[in-house]
């Protein structure tokens, strides 16, 4: 088990390195660079910038150097924990990304918790009460959940919250806390706002997870070990929770890893609609403006989180399933 974790941890730096190359290649792949579009923008708005200034800027950001030197300089500063400067905002990327990343992760975790808290019990109920009326109701709800685009759900929920509860539910903070430094009150304020976008983000995943849990559990309920457990004289709910539920969960645990990045990227449209200060809109702008170090840093962080998420779910799976745990031993 320990060997398994150590192995995975050893691979981690290599994976990050590999992804950094791919990410860098991707963000600088479009023709032109930040300055060409910057100059073009200035020109179209009537003002201009002299060639000397452009050259100075080029040199400052290393844009006059070949790609591999640019990559090397980026890596150099990354290894010092410095994500570089944003070309557009002229501020350190760490500063730009920092709080937005925290909020994005908080939102993703909330959505994740809501998803599992609802989907697992609902899936268990549906499977153990197959073809009951509540099973049918859940099935219909699940189809609606999967089929509704989440920006539309966001609009509907915002409208409902506004017209019936009188809540203005855009953003993640009340106006007085938006710029405030972190404090207990600010966290409380965040909690008051975060549940709605978390629900919006979680609905489709919940619906899907409920279906998968139901199907897995129905499969497991037909296995001979369930009959054995019943034949011992265990009560039905003890049988169900100790054996088939446990086995039905295993394949789901291994999906946690790719569930998190899905939440990050899925949140872009919702973030735009609900005006959420998370990382999606920032990434979109960085990409369209060819703010390459900012976009690259965000993408690399995504990759890193994905790898870590996969690692966590692998470890969880190994803890849950002795067949996997002992494979390597």
């Amino acid at each position, binding site marked *: 088990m320990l060997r398994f974790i150590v192995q995975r941890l050893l691979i981690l730096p290599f994976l990050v390195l590999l992804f950094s190359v791919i990410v860098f290649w991707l963000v600088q792949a479009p023709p032109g660079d930040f300055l060409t579009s910057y100059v073009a923008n200035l020109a179209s708005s009537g003002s201009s910038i002299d060639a000397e200034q452009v050259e100075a800027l080029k040199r400052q950001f290393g844009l006059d150097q070949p790609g591999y030197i640019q990559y090397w300089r980026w890596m150099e500063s990354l290894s010092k924990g410095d994500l570089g400067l944003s070309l557009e905002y002229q501020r350190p990327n760490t500063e730009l990304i920092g709080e937005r990343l925290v909020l994005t992760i908080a939102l993703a975790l909330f959505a994740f918790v809501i998803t599992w808290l609802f989907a697992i019990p609902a899936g268990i109920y549906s499977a153990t009460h197959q073809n009951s009326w509540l099973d049918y109701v859940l099935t219909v709800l699940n189809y609606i959940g999967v089929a509704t685009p989440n920006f539309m759900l966001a609009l509907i929920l915002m409208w409902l919250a506004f017209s019936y509860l009188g809540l203005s539910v855009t953003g993640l903070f009340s106006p007085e806390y938006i710029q405030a430094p972190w404090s207990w009150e600010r966290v409380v304020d965040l909690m008051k706002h975060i549940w709605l976008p978390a629900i919006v983000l979680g609905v489709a995943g919940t619906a899907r997870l409920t279906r998968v849990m139901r199907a897995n559990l129905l499969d497991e309920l037909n*296995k*001979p*070990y369930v*009959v*054995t*457990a*019943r*034949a*011992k*004289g*265990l*009560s*039905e709910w003890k049988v169900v929770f*100790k*054996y088939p539920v*446990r*086995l039905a969960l*295993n394949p789901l645990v291994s999906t946690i890893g790719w569930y998190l990045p899905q939440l990050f990227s899925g949140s872009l449209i919702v973030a735009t609609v609900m005006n959420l200060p998370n990382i999606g809109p920032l990434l979109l702008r960085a990409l369209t403006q060819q703010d390459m170090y900012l976009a690259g840093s965000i993408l690399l962080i995504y990759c890193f989180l994905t790898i870590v998420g996969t690692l966590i779910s692998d470890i969880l799976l190994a803890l*849950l*399933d*002795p*067949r996997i745990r002992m494979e390597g031993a």
Partner: protein
Amino acid sequence: MDKQQPLLSVKNLKTHFFMDEGVVKAVDGVTFDVQAGQVFGIVGESGCGKSVTMKAVLRLVDPPGRIVGGEIMLRRTNEDGSTNEAIDLVKLDANGKMMRDIRGAEIALIPQEPMASFSPVHTIGDQICEAIMLHQSVDKRAARKIALQMLKDVGIPIPEQRLDEYSWQLSGGLRQRAIIAMALSCNPRLLIADEPTTAVDVTTQAQVLRLLRRLQEQRNAAIIFITHDLGVIAQMADSVMVMYLGLVMEQGPVETIFHNAKHPYTQALLRSIPTVTMTPRVNLPTISGSIPHPFNKPKGCPFHPRCEKSIAGKCDARTPALQAAGERQWVSCFLYHDVEVSA
């Protein structure tokens, strides 16, 4: 029948599956008695309802299946060892306290598929101790001790280590023994062994059979022994019941059935066993035709389309009832009586 009251007395048991496509009458009026300390064999081709009958006895038939008729009388034992009145298991709530106290403790099951009958993510010890702690008021340590002794009793080498292993780490033979150990761990008075030897090789099979025999004699338990193999029945059983398509064809002491089988189906089954005196490389006689699909069971005696002695106008119209035909022998065939199943 013996003067002694039977331990288990099943009367006219019917278990049907209500599917979208129609009703499968998997068990359609089965009657038999099992005496304490006896090995009761059940034979029959695949799909004739052997496992479903046993699931019904344990009250483990799942929807869309349901017991639709009959009774299952089990004689229970008092604390002081004396026996008291029989209770009808059909009348109990399948998941109620009473039935759960009986399952595992009084009637235990050795399931048909030993390979998949243990959970792969729980240790053998965990699963055996669970059964022990459920029916006996002992703590974890004591339960582990009992489980260890059980594994020793069924002849598993290095049992301390096996307790902490998972079923997939055990060979087929060991797994089969572990299943038997689990079933025996609460000293059941009735053990249902559903084809306990089909999944293991011949040597292991012989060992498992000896083991069951010995344990049964030591503990004076009754065993219901299900198999396709008449040779195994001859070796193990005291009485035997022959089933076909959810019905009992013939029943009686093992010697009587083997030497004086009355039902044409039993006779045909016996002819299909190889014997040492046979000429080698000659095809064994087989029963002509195949088992009909459960949805379109033949009218009348279910065996009549394949029966050489079927009486036209009788066997294809009415279903014969199980009737005494000699001492302790019962047969459902119009060659011997004229009683039909009342609708």
